[in-house]
């Protein structure tokens, strides 16, 4: 994994080895980059590895793998196009919907307080022992308390709402529960992470552990951290949910994918989230 070290610390011999991998970008991840939002809020993008990620040298946010222009876009809330979704989410938060005539705000009050830290703890095992993603909690409120229709997992309303809720945890470290009732889900997710899927027989690990920092087509392979989700993807010109991204990855292995919101993806979300423990929630990130 010589290519993961900063270029300046590379010995000559290992630099030659790295150069043999065609497409290996020596600058990835750019460990000298520092994410400061609007010159005020510092976001932790590097965290030490532990038993959860024995194969990583350290935990690196996907932000460190992006080019300077994309990184700058996220460092300025005005230029960050995801803030458009956050604005619509804020509006949905206070808009009454459904037969009960209630809005999110009527029960949860000021999101800045009530939703602080929620993103950092997701997904979470609910009172019935089921692992739920943020989308499940939102839809449960809508169908059970508001008498409203459930939103589509990756539909515009849902991604705006998760973007708005995630913003309230920006700058808080990812801290998902992986023991107790969450343990079997976490183990299921870990097994999926190391299972090779599809005609290309690729596991998550094949790209995001073994090949981090190398090129995949015209893009750079990150560690596949989800601390920045939901994220504004420039190629989609819109917000992408975690499960949407999982589906895209599995599709690219030429496999039939799991459905968004499926038990499999929720378990994988928990495991991947735990791989990012210690990294800060980025609220809404920008990725290519």
């Amino acid at each position, binding site marked *: 994994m010589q290519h993961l070290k900063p270029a300046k610390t590379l010995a000559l011999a290992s630099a030659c080895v790295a150069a043999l991998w065609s497409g290996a970008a020596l600058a990835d991840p750019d460990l000298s980059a520092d994410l400061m939002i609007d010159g005020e809020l510092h976001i932790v993008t590097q965290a030490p590895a532990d038993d959860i990620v024995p194969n990583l040298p350290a935990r690196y946010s996907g932000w460190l793998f992006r080019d300077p222009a994309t990184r700058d876009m996220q460092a300025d809330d*005005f*230029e960050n*196009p995801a*803030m*458009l979704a956050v*604005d*619509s989410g804020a509006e949905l938060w206070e808009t009454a919907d459904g037969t009960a005539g209630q809005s999110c705000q009527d029960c949860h009050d000021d999101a800045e307080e009530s939703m602080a830290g929620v993103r950092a703890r997701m997904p979470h095992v609910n009172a019935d022992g089921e692992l739920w993603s943020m989308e499940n909690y939102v839809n449960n409120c809508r169908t059970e308390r508001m008498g409203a229709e459930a939103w589509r997992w990756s539909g*515009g309303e849902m991604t705006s709402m998760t973007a708005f809720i995630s913003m309230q945890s920006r700058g808080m470290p990812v801290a998902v529960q992986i023991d107790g009732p969450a343990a079997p889900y976490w183990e299921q997710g870990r097994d999926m992470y190391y299972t090779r899927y599809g005609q290309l027989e690729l596991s998550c690990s094949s790209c995001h552990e073994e090949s981090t920092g190398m090129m995949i087509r015209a893009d750079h392979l990150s560690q596949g951290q989800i601390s920045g989700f939901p994220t504004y993807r*420039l190629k989609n*010109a*819109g917000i992408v949910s975690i499960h949407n991204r999982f589906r895209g990855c599995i599709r690219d292995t030429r496999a039939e994918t799991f459905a968004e919101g499926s038990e499999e993806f929720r378990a994988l979300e928990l495991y991947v989230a735990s791989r990012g423990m210690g990294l800060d929630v980025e609220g809404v990130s920008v990725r290519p």
Partner: protein
Amino acid sequence: MTEVRPRIRLPRSASAGDSIVVKTLINHDMESGQRRNSAGETIPRQIINRFTCEFNGVMVLDAALEPAISANPYMEFEAVVPESGDFVFTWYDDNGEVYTATETFEVS
């Protein structure tokens, strides 16, 4: 499409005669007219085709936008502010709608 919501950012302060950086962002699909829907029919073009910025009635910028511009067009440019006054920003939509935003700027 969701409601169009222009966003403007001006610096906090500047002296009379200074050149300031103006940033604007508007949420818009910028449908190019080149795409087809699942039934194979062409999705009609609908873009912001013109953007203007005026300061106290004087035209600062008048831009023609083309279909290759991405969704949620972001504009950043410089403007000289000779005095305090109002910036008026206008976006012209293909469907005939016009979106405007006004921002007052005080020189120190």
